[in-house]
């Protein structure tokens, strides 16, 4: 175990009573002080992983360690983590301050000290004037901040956040994202954040743990994950990708070429790509350039043009029958492509990645 790791999963698997497998042999470590996001579609196991950390679910096999201590058979109340719940789960019979005091009462912190710490936590979440409010008087954003303050005041080693912003409207959500990010950096605390919202994951995280079907697909920094996805799922779940499948002709010097759509297309070769096997070439729509038909790229026809403000999206039908999406910057004095135009598409060599099947 590396000395910076605060959380370690080793061979964790989990099934529910009806034998549906939720987590399959998860092993990985999380570093101290980083903002982690567990990202994936519904049912990928991310919430279960979080609940295992909190102690609400027990893994069927494998071990979980937090701060070097084995958490097996350790009930939720004795774990050095606290959670911000999805619907906040604030206690309706307690005021804001009393909610924040709950954990300190459990830990039998002396009441003078507890009050001071609670006030600090409220101030940190910009709620210093709301201590006496009743829960039902709070707005959505305030309730969310109370939930964060109630968890933080206990000084957990890890803060767990289960889709904490899902119930807020878009604008408030953006704002709370910034606040959470600032709070995390100020405290230097490890955050583990569950979401299915890719924008949120990109905006917040030091590291994104991308999950699918009960497995961890890829763990990487947001930029890295976006630019260098390891598999087709990663390429298509986070942002959009054109995926062109074909046979890999050869792999030389880190560049693979695949035969597809009546051409030979080069791209950066990923692990596991071998000549003669099926490969998938992925290229982001914004990296695709639309050029005149005289160009050497793939030939096609513009099927539809969608104006999107800063960019224009061209949906192309390739001569081979495949479809491709290209986002072009909208520049003044430059005419937009028209439906029915014959064009060719091309991209820089480093814009495409060839992924193994």
């Amino acid at each position, binding site marked *: 175990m590396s000395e910076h790791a605060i959380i370690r999963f080793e061979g964790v698997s989990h099934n529910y009573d009806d034998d549906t497998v939720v987590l399959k042999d998860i092993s990985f470590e999380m570093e101290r002080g980083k903002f982690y996001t567990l990202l994936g579609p519904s*049912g990928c196991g991310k919430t279960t992983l979080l609940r295992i950390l909190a102690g609400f679910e027990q893994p069927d096999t494998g071990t979980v360690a937090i701060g070097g201590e084995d958490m097996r058979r350790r009930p939720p*109340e004795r774990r050095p983590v606290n*959670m911000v719940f*999805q619907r906040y789960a604030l206690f309706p*019979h307690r005021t804001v301050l009393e909610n924040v005091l709950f954990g300190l009462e*459990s830990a039998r912190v002396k009441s003078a000290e507890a009050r001071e710490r609670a006030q600090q936590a409220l101030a940190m979440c910009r709620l210093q004037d709301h201590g006496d409010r009743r829960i039902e008087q709070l707005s959505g954003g305030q309730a969310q901040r109370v939930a964060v303050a109630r968890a933080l005041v206990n000084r957990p080693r890890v803060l767990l956040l289960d889709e904490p912003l899902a119930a807020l409207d878009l604008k408030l959500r953006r704002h709370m994202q910034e606040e959470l990010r600032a709070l995390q950096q100020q405290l230097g605390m490890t955050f583990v954040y569950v979401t299915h919202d890719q924008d949120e994951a990109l905006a917040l995280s030091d590291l994104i743990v991308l999950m699918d079907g009960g497995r961890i697909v890829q763990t990487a920094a947001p930029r890295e994950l976006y630019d260098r996805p390891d598999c087709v799922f990663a390429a298509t779940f986070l942002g959009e990708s054109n995926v062109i499948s074909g046979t890999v002709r050869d792999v030389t010097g880190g560049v693979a070429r695949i035969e597809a759509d009546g051409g030979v297309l080069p791209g950066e070769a990923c692990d596991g790509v071998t000549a003669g096997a099926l490969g998938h070439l992925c290229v982001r729509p914004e990296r695709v350039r639309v050029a005149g038909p005289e160009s050497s790229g793939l030939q096609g026809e513009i099927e539809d043009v969608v104006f999107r403000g800063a960019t224009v999206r061209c949906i192309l039908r390739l001569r081979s029958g495949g479809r491709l999406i290209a986002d072009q910057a909208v520049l003044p004095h430059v005419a937009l492509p028209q439906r029915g135009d014959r064009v060719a598409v091309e991209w820089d060599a480093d814009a495409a990645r060839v992924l193994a099947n």
Partner: protein
Amino acid sequence: MHRLRIPVQVAPLGSLLAVACALPLAILFVYSFWQLSNFVIVHDWTLANYRAGLLDGYYLRLFARSLGTGAAVGAIAVILAYPFAYAARFRFTRWRNALLFAVLLSMFASYLVRVYAFQSILGRTGVINWFLQEIGIVDQPLDFLLFNRFAVIVTLTNVFLPFVLLPIWAAMQNVDPASIEAARDLGARPWTVFWKVVVPATRKAALAGFAFAFVLASGDYVTPTLVGGTDGLMIGKPIANSFGLTNNYPLGSALAFTMLLLFALVVFVVPRLLRRPLRVLGSVWKEHRPAVGPRWAVRIPGARLWPYALVPGVLAFLFAPLVIVVVLSFTTRDVPAFPMDGVTLRWYDNVLGDELFSSALTNSIKLAVFTGVAAAVLGTLAAIGLTRREFALKPAVEAFLLVPIALPGLITGVAMLTLYTWAQIPLSMLTIAVGHLVFATPFVVLVMMARLRDVDPLLAEAGRDLGATPLGVFRRVTLPLIAPAIAGGALVAAALSLDEFIITNFVSGSNVTLPLFIWSKLRIGVTPDVNAVSTLILLSLAVLVLAFFLLGGSVGRGVSRARSAKASASSRAASGQPRIDQPRGSQP
């Protein structure tokens, strides 16, 4: 697996019901195969009692009449309850709380007093005859109003209507007005909307209400005794007599079990048998009815105003008996009859000076306090066990804990009496207390289960996450949230105890409670004394129900506020934002 174990919280109530309800029924069952010979029970196994019950024309007629009466009461109650609940939901929305309070009040307003009241309404010297004579429609009082089946059906409908109204009311609250608007928008006429939208959403509640009224009305013996005469006699009377007057326990037991069997047939088997033919009939009707045509579109002027007649009418029907009893408690005449000559408090003086009354009052208060506290504790525990998590046999355990609600008091009462006779346990305040507890606790379980279901299970997890042990979570989170409901449950139990007559009548021995005091007065000759005692009972019941309503009301408001917050959050989520994905399997 540990998840399947029955939770310990249901154990206290479960054992109480096993000892004080299931065991007595088992012993009663055994008795039904024994025999009475020279006034002594002989332990010779025989089917003679059942033969007597089923082959004797006398009992057969009584069975038939009881079931018929029960069915009529259930049907009339459902027919009255539907439009009342509908009007309260969609037309008198501002008065909804007041109407609900009225229904609750009438539900708890003394059973015995209301039955007695109908003597003062339908009798020779009753309100109706007095009124008819005053306006000169008749010269002589009509005798056919009281002491017959008609009087029994009217009285029982009055008693059980609130029990049918409440479930239909609750189901009606869940009918979304938007679904009605959608149906109208799609071209359905009001009547079609009612059949295709409202009825399907409330049918289960209506059937449950019907079954409840049917069983309790069919098994009643007090109403036939007080207002039935010979024509209105029902099977409950000979059963009750077997455990008192004639002391023929075996025959009474056999009749009681035959009655239970018939109830089970009507409630569980008959609907199943009827389902198919009804469906066939329905499809035949659909095929052959005229395709178009305004058959049902007959417009009656002012028809939309029906709620203004129906709702006050039902309320008047529910409350008239109570008002009349109270009014007649102040009469200067020696009989509780109209017209009254003047107003006096003499009858209250009389009653308060009566030693038997003060002993009955003390006993009733003791019993109500005991039942309130004990039922609240046992009922809350059981409800926690039943709502916290899934376990094997859950439906069976739930049914076992709730079944005393649907068991006619007559059966519970005679079964308990039989147990005490068999085990030679002397009748005392304790036997009454056990009877009240068995009767009242299941109601508390219902109240508490409804409340506990509204407590978000995430709150318990949040408590654990913040360092509280499971017991700490209960003390610091769950208990404060359900405390008002527990108090409400205790009040309900106290009210039920204060008013309990049927079971008490069998297990009281020489002890007197307020309803028993009224009953004894009714048997020796009615004076306005009875009205004075009744008024006192009604008053204390009204106070209890009001307190319950205020507690429940505040709980209800809190819940509805939480719900509306949740709804607005989800509508926000629905408008262009991804749905919250629920962790699977995290439900308790």
